[in-house]
């Protein structure tokens, strides 16, 4: 840790306090989601729970973010919704990134027929508006954590294929790739040891930005009712349901909305910082 | 009064590694109509000097001390507005890579007309076109209209270079600052660039300050030379003196490192490396690499005037060659 804070990379990153704020926010939220069961004031409010005496309570000392029309603590539900957002975001990247990277490397390095087949396939996916595609898939499948993840991943890998494809196309002409060939390196070595490591900075930066997009997309799916199904808390759905009570019971939409905003903003700021630190274009 | 004069120019940058003290008191002068070269290896601060003179270090984290006077007025304290009346009008600029210096999205003509109109030489585009045509013909471009209607990528390196020279000179500046002109181009084109710059400069009576790493270019182009090492001027002299009787050990070493067309001997390397500016050697910055170094070199070297404008910053200006 000490070494990190003394490194040149950290120095560059920390030039912008906004990026540091973004990173700090992400870390705090990540920590909070992990320990949510310990710190949530009303863990039982996450599931099916009704408390008619405390419906639509405004924010206060007992209910930080107020309560909803079933008397459930919104703060607790936001904490648990964050868990879902984080988990889905990470899992989407865990599927989309490896698939996208492998296909991008192959298409970029070998060219020819491999290139045509892979890249035209990505074109098909990229031609469809992502939200529409995800909604179509979700409309067809049962809304569940796994299916949401699958639907978003299906739309996400082509972006990584394209990023890695473009990087590979330019990197394969680099002197060190040519030199590695002359040094007798196998294609596998060249792809994994020479080209891929030089894609990592762009990859990391894109992943940071994409976390915010994925979170936003989950929220959007939730908003139109295709996200996590009740009673599991979902930020998008909470905003949508709270809208009925606007403007009097404003907290029901505003706090989940702010929660989305903060997380998305944090990942964006962090992405900006990474981009400056790693000196890449995405 | 000199046309351009920098006095005790210091530039520092705050870096992760600490304070990087790059320019360490640069004093140089360019008289009207004179061709002056600043020569040194990469990282010696020569381009930084040019950028300081052109006010291109404003809005960066550079800390600048000292003075840069142009025609008697101080440039370092000039406002952005003041700069606009100088850059491109009274001081022209020519950069290393001509294709990178032109905006690829506009035609050559549009870019040239803008320079002419901004320089106050024409109000209308039509008048600007006449001036541009005349100026291009002057650089031996046979068909100026074809060039004016072209986009930069349609020009060869040689043509692009001539367009840039035209751009730098069309407003008849008093000083042209050329940073490694043509060194990104083939040697035959570079030669042409230098010839053209010399001819046009002479014709307009413009002074030229050329920044280069190539001693051959210095000898063929300049009248007077400043040799720079690690952010300081180590020797200044007229070209003949510098090439026939160099005094600073660095100048001598640099000359011996140049491969000769006559091939009588392999060029001689200079031992050691250019110092890290965050921990530059105290005193003479060359002393760790100098074959004649002695204890006195730990102090800042005196600038010894050898007469005839030949000055050398060395405790041993008479050291045996």
């Amino acid at each position: 840790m000490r070494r990190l804070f003394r490194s040149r990379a950290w120095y560059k990153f920390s030039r912008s306090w906004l990026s540091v704020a973004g990173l700090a926010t992400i870390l705090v939220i990540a920590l909070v989601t992990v320990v949510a069961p310990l710190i949530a004031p009303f863990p039982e409010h996450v599931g099916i729970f009704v408390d008619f005496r405390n419906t639509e309570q405004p924010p206060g000392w007992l209910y930080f973010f107020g309560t909803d029309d079933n008397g459930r603590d919104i703060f607790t539900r936001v904490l648990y919704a964050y868990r879902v957002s984080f988990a889905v975001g990470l899992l989407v990247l865990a599927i989309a990134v490896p698939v996208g990277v492998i296909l991008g490397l192959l298409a970029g390095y070998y060219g020819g027929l491999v290139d045509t087949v892979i890249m035209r396939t990505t074109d098909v996916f990229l031609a469809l508006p992502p939200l529409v595609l995800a909604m179509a898939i979700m409309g067809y499948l049962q809304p569940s954590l796994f299916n949401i993840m699958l639907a978003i991943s299906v739309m996400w890998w082509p972006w990584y294929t394209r990023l890695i494809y473009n990087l590979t196309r330019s990197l394969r002409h680099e002197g060190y790739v040519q030199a590695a060939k002359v040094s007798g390196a196998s294609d596998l070595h060249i792809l994994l040891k020479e080209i891929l490591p030089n894609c990592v900075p762009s990859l990391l930066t894109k992943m940071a930005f994409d976390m915010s997009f994925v979170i936003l997309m989950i929220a959007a799916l939730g908003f139109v009712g295709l996200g996590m199904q009740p009673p599991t808390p979902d930020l998008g759905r909470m905003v949508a349901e709270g809208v009925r009570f606007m403007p009097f019971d404003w907290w029901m939409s505003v706090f989940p909305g702010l929660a989305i905003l903060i997380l998305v903003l944090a990942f964006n700021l962090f992405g900006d910082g990474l981009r400056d630190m790693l000196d890449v274009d995405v | 009064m000199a046309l351009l004069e920098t006095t005790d120019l210091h530039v520092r940058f705050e870096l992760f590694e600490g304070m990087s003290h790059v320019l360490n008191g640069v004093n140089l002068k360019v008289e009207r109509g004179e061709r002056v070269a600043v020569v040194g290896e990469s990282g010696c601060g020569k381009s930084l000097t040019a950028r300081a003179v052109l006010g291109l270090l404003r809005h960066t984290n550079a800390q600048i001390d000292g003075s840069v006077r142009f025609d008697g007025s101080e440039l370092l304290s000039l406002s952005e507005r003041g700069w606009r009346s100088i850059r491109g009008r009274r001081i022209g600029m020519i950069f290393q890579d001509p294709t990178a210096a032109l905006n690829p999205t506009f035609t050559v003509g549009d870019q040239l007309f803008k320079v002419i109109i901004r320089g106050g030489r024409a109000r209308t585009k039509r008048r600007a076109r006449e001036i541009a045509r005349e100026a291009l013909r002057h650089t031996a471009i046979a068909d100026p209209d074809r060039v004016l209607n072209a986009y930069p990528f349609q020009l060869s390196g040689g043509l692009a270079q001539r367009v840039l020279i035209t751009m730098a000179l069309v407003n008849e500046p008093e000083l042209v600052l050329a940073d490694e002109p043509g060194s990104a181009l083939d040697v035959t084109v570079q030669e042409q660039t230098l010839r053209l710059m010399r001819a046009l400069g002479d014709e307009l009576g413009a002074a030229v300050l050329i920044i280069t790493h190539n001693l051959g270019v210095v000898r063929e182009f300049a009248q007077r030379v400043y040799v720079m090492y690690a952010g300081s001027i180590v020797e200044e002299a007229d070209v003949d003196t510098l090439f026939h009787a160099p005094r600073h050990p660095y100048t001598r070493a640099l000359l011996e490192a140049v491969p000769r067309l006559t091939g009588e001997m392999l060029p001689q390397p200079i031992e050691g490396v250019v110092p890290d500016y965050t921990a530059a050697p105290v005193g003479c910055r060359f002393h760790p690499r100098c074959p004649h170094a002695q204890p006195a070199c730990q102090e800042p070297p005196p600038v010894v005037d050898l007469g005839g404008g030949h000055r050398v910053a060395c405790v041993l200006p008479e050291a045996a060659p």
Partner: protein
Amino acid sequence: MSTAPVLSVRGLSKYYRVKGTRVDALAGIDLDIRRGETMAIVGESGSGKTTLGNLILGLERASAGQVIFEGAPLQMRRSSALRRRIQVVQQNPFSTLNPKRTVRATIELPLRAYKMVSRDRYRARVGELLDIVGMSSTHMNRYPAALSGGQRQRVALARALASEPEIIVLDEPTSALDVSVQARVLALLVELQRTFDLTYIFITHDLSVVRNIARRVSVMYRGRVVESGPTESVFAAPRHRYTSMLLSSIPVVSDAELAVKPSWTWDPGAIEGQGLHSDGCPFAPRCPHAVDACWSDVPELESLETAHLAACHRPAGSS
């Protein structure tokens, strides 16, 4: 030194298709390189000199013609036993080493790939190679970012030497370096050639360097060899007008050099002539001596005296 060439190039050509038209990067060239010599290939951008290097190294496929190594034709896809024997040092010290790999990983690659030494000897061998190029083993775990331009070129040289090649293609190995560093790398190259009996194909645009390092030189222009011969002879009495032009445009630092430069009357249109097309001599559009024949017939490389060849209809010093 044996007289049979170790590497020959016969009618080697490379065309590209650019928007339907054929562009000849290399238009049928012949070369012979003898064991233990330094053969310089000189030319400006667009001369095809780097393409020639890539074809010899098997990084590109020839459109026509052959590279013959020790009497047998050499293809782009070649056995690793053959690939090992021709290595490369490239121009740009910033791209020749992978920024994400340590010096050790870089030099170990050919040791592993060509099974040069047993696995437990890798580290020791990398140390030896670094020592050979004048660096210390302490550089082993550094990344290229921590090295100077000159040091990077030394590492590239160590990587080339790791596979114990016979031929090294040096593609502008010093042109991005400062003169003081260039001098050191050149001295190292000369020393290594002597120690390991290496054959160098030295590709460069810098005639001053050629004069100091090469025994023989071939001057290329637009994909053809226009002049070829012993360095001293080519420099003292260039036959092709392009060679004269090239020599005359080098900025020099001493009176002695000025005296050996050929005089050349500059035609300002000569640069624009680069855009013109000639069916004959590729240099005709820029040549002040061009006659009709130069525009219509491609001149053959002809011997004017022993071993000194020029492809010119009106060579200097002939009439």
